[in-house]
Every structure is written in C-alpha cells, then in structure tokens.
C-alpha cells in the first residue's frame, strides 16, 4: 500500500478555505511495527504494519479501543521506544536513529499531552518550575525571559499568573491539563500529540480543553495527532480520522465522510456506541461480541471477524487489503461494497 495515497486534501468546516490545498506531509509513517517480546516464543504485535501521513497543519484523529496500539504509536513518535521495523519521518527526517543533541532537538519538535494530568506533573514541584525546567534544559532564554514566557503561556492556556506558585495538588484536573498543554507548547513544537487528553476529565472540563486545543491549533498552525477511544472527542477537532483495530488501521477517511458513510463494520460499531441513547443500547451495530481479542494471538484472516456481525467464511481465511473506497477514504474490509453505507437502513439487516 502506498502511503501517498493517504495524503490528501482536507475539508474541515472549521478551516479557512485557503488551506484546502494538498499539504506537504510533516509526519510520514511507513509500515511501522512494534513487537514487544514476552519470553522466548511470545510477542505482542502492538503495532503491525501501520502507514499514514499527517500534512502540515492537519489534525489526524486516531481512534480505537484500549490495547489496539494507538498509544504505542504515540510512544514511537516521541521516541520513548524504538520501532521493530518500518520508518517514522518527521519533517523529512528519519527519527529512528537520532541521538544526543539531535534527539534533544527532535524532542522540541514533537510534543506530547498526556492522558492523566495529575501524573504528568511532579507533585513536589511548583507549576512554574515544572513549566520552566524544559526551557532551561533546552537553553532557551535567560531566567527572566523564561519566567516571562511561562507567565504568558499560563494566560494563553486560560489560567492566570497565580498558578506559577502553586503545587499540582492545589489545582483541578482541568487546570492541570491546561498546564500540561502549556508546558508542551512552550517548546514551540511543530507537531503535538494528544494521547487521550480529556478522558480523565469531567464533561464540562472536556469541552473546555477541546476548545482550548482547537484555539491553539488555529493560532499556532499546529499539526496534531489526537488519540482517543471516543469518536465524539475527535469529531470536533480532527480533519481526518484513522480507526485502529488490533495493531492495524482498518479505516481512514475525512472526518465528515467517516461519520456520514462509515465503511468498516468496526467503525460503525464505534460510532453507534459513542452515540448512546435508550434504544441505542440494544441496537444491532454495537452488538460487538466480547472483548478485544488478545494481541498475543490475533485472529487469522480479518482481525475483526471474531466480533463482526457480518463475518463470512472468507473473513477468517484471508486478511483484507487496504482498499480505496473513494479518493480520500480507505477501508480494510472484504465486504465494504456490500455493506450498506446508510446506517439507518442498516439497523434492521443482519
């Protein structure tokens, strides 16, 4: 599969029309795989042959259940771990073999917002110190300039200067997540990864943080990767969405296309499950059987066939190829043509 088929135009309604041209890719991932070895004969194929690109200024959503490998991709992109095989290029530079000073520079380019804001800040450090330390480590500015920068960033992420002196335990989760986002942005990264940035937060905090991220993305022209298990969260902010299942990407499409005409049965189940209501609880789409199979021993053939309501004999024998359903819409399913794209018409059929 050619990764460049995935590089495409973006039509988000929150984007100004000027950006609807083809964007040069900032992040290119090709045939990326990460296997964790457990003992001699077992290995978990956490990420298995994943390819995608993210254009300059684009926001890609990466969605899937826990254990599907989406967080491993975040770890690979931030060089917290090295890939088993495949390539990761950021701004044209292969990141697998950088080290020393170059790695340090890469770390400025790629930043990460963590899921748990309470854990991401040292409980014994004042917030100001936590935010300033990375700047000092990268030798940015003088002490006064750094303090100045931190103060400005605190205001930018919607806090005030009094937070400089506080300890993390004196803040709420939403406030800490703002601090974590601010700390990442202080290094002026060109690529921001958000790993479940709102799943530890309340509904009202969640929207505040999502609004903040949308705002910052527009103001700084950030390229982003939004990782979440909840389609509702990525829907608002992303231009394009990739759905991951057991280490593989099963569907990639523009945000609106994905919600309007989801092709993969798994995507449909995810959409149905995230739009719960009373009748929805018993809707056939979310009747996914059982849990995610163990990545230690993924099913043969199509990895989703064990839980798929539409599975046929072929699904357990051969793994489907990644096919283009339209110019900007790829899906990995044998029967995507046969499956009605209209979800309301789908509800009654097997």
């Amino acid at each position, binding site marked *: 599969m050619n990764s460049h088929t995935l590089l495409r135009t973006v039509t988000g309604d*929150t984007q100004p029309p000027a950006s609807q041209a083809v964007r040069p890719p900032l992040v290119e991932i090709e045939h990326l795989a990460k296997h964790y070895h457990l003992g001699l004969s077992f290995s978990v194929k956490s990420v298995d042959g994943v390819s995608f690109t993210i254009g300059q200024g684009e926001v890609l959503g990466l969605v899937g*259940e826990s254990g599907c490998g989406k967080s491993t991709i975040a770890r690979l992109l931030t060089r917290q771990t090295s890939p088993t095989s495949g390539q990761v290029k950021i701004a044209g530079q292969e990141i697998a073999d950088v080290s020393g000073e170059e790695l340090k520079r890469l770390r400025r380019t790629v930043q990460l917002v963590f899921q748990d804001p309470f854990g991401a800040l040292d409980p014994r450090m004042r917030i100001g110190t936590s935010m300033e330390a990375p700047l000092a480590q990268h030798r940015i500015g003088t002490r006064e300039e750094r303090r100045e920068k931190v103060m400005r960033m605190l205001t930018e992420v919607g806090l005030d200067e009094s937070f400089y002196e506080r300890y993390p335990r004196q803040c709420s*989760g939403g406030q800490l997540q703002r601090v974590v986002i601010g700390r990442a942005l202080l290094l002026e990264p060109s690529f921001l990864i958000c790993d479940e940035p709102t799943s530890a937060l309340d*509904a*009202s905090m969640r929207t505040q943080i*999502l609004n903040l991220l949308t705002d910052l993305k527009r103001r700084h022209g950030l390229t982003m990767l939004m990782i979440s298990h909840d389609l509702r969260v990525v829907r608002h902010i992303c231009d394009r969405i990739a759905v991951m299942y057991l280490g593989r990407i099963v569907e990639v499409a523009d945000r609106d296309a994905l919600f309007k005409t989801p092709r993969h049965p798994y995507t449909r189940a995810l959409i*149905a499950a995230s739009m719960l*209501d009373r009748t*929805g609880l018993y809707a056939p789409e979310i009747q996914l059987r059982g849990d*995610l199979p163990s990545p230690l021993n993924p099913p043969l053939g199509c990895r989703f066939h064990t839980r798929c309501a539409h599975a046929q004999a072929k699904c357990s024998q051969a793994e489907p190829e990644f096919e283009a359903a339209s110019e900007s819409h790829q899906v990995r399913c044998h029967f995507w043509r046969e499956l009605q794209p209209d979800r309301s018409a789908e509800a009654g059929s097997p």
Partner: protein
Amino acid sequence: MNKRDEPLLVIEDLKVAFPGQSAPVIDGLSLTLDRGEVLALVGESGSGKSMTALSLMRLLPSGGAITGGRIRFDGEDVLSLPDRQMNRLRGGRMAMLFQQPQAMLDPTSRVSAQIAEPLRLHRGLGRRAAMGRVLDLLRDVGIPDPAVRARCFSHELSGGMAQRVMMAAALSGDPDMLIADEPTTALDVTVQAQILRLIDEERRKRNLATLLITHDLAVVAALADRVAVMYAGRIVEEGPAKAVLESPQHPYTQALMRCSLLVPDPHGQLLSIPGSGTHARELTCGCRFHPRCSAASQHGLVSRCMRSEPALKPDADGHVTRCWAVETEKETAA
C-alpha cells in the same frame, strides 16, 4: 414502620462533612429509590455524588462523617444499625460496582475465590456448592467459558471482563439494591454499551433498585428512569429521565447536556461551562451555581441569585428544580 408503602431506599436531608473543611460535602440531600428503578445521580467530580454512595454503604473515607439526616433501607434505619448487621447488609442486600474494577479485585487470589468467599461466609455454603454458584453467576453475567475464567487472576482479565466479574460478585448476595459508581467510565465505548446492557438486564430480571452515578449523560440516557443532578453537594434538579433530558430546567443541567453532546456552535466552539465548581461548596450565600451561571443575568436576577439560595420547587409531573430563573418564569407564565 410501614414497609409496604415506602420506597426501598429513602434518604432524608443527608449531611456529610469532613473535619477541616468549612463546607459539608453533601448538604441536605433527599432522595428515594424504588425497586426495579434506575435513578441516575449526575454531576461533576466533587459534586458529592460518590460520597452519597459511600454514605449509603457507611463506607466514608476516614474523617468523613454523616452529620445529619436519615437513610432508611427497606424500613430499617441504616445509620443506626450495629456494624455487624451493616456488614451483612453491604455484602448482601446492597451491592456496589466501582469505576476501576481491576483495582477492586485482589491481584493475588483467583476470581472464583473472591466471589465464593462471601457466599461461604454469609450464606454458609460449602466449598463445592459455593463453586457451583460462582459458575452460575459468571454465566449469568455473560462471561464465556466461566470454568476457565473462574481460575483467572484479575490482571488476566480485560476491563470489561473485570467489571462483569464485579457484577457477578455483586449479585452473589442476591441484592435488592445496586449502587453503580461510574461503572463504565474506565471502559472502552464498545464495552461500555455491553456493561450498561448487562446492568439493565439484571435489574429487569431481579427487580433491582439501581443507583447509577455518572457524569456522562449518554449513560444516563441509556439506562435511567429518573435523574437527579447534583451540584456542590446539593440536588439542583430531579425528575423523570425523559423530562430532565428533553427539557432540562436548571441552567446547570442545560449546560451539562450541551457539554456531553460535544456539539459545536456556528463558530466551531464547543459549548462549555466556564470556570470550575471546585470551590462552589464554600459559597456561604446565594445559589451555588451563580458564579458560572448565565441565566441569572439574562433574567435580571443577579442580585437575587447572589443573596439567597432558591429551594427545590416542583412542577406538575414530579420534576423539581432549584433555580430562581425557572421559578420566576413559571410565575410569569401563571
């Protein structure tokens, strides 16, 4: 005491406080819950909804104390029960599901042992009888291969599986009431639907009174018969789920609804509630929501909202709201 006419659970004017904190965590909460009914308790973290659940079980974290009010469960005064009877109630007729099912299971002993233990202790079942019952329960909650899973340790279970095991443990005592504290928050969306369905099926089958605690209104919509919305230790709105979800009255409920739906406005902004409710409990006068409320200014009620706190006022169909704006509106309508 008249057992027949009274709902299964009656909470009257409950107050819970922690020493060293100026304001009570729960301040004058009254609720009822009937058999077979699902009551959803909704609110942000810190609103006191989990504390309500823990006070029902008399399991408040150390220091916390119930300083006022009454809790009656099936006609019995829960707060004055001796510890021993309370223990029997907890393991038996009141059961609980938690947010982190894996953390609630002992990592060093097998699933079967953990479900069997209360059976043997409370019911005096023999080893073999208890094990048979465990397998039945595991089958009931939809665990495939119960015999295999029963021998697992908690870390070998996925989150959804662990929550099912917790459900089996909860059902082992043949409860009348199930308290589910954010039972699906830590789970994936697909598994979330399965667990909610399981709760729904079990309560129908067993006529379980269910207290569902959550901050996610999608979960409420899927399961609840009645909804009580909590803010800063107080109930601000309560009523039939359909009424509350379709025509929320209190500005806080309205805002919470919009947050949960994650629907952007024409400017591409998601609707959110400004500020945080962390210190709202410490407000000494006025409506506790007024610093974050927009209805007050729209109705020209700011000074009233700041000065005195509204009471819970009912409308025709048992839908009660604690808000000056709603009250004024009704008066003008009448």
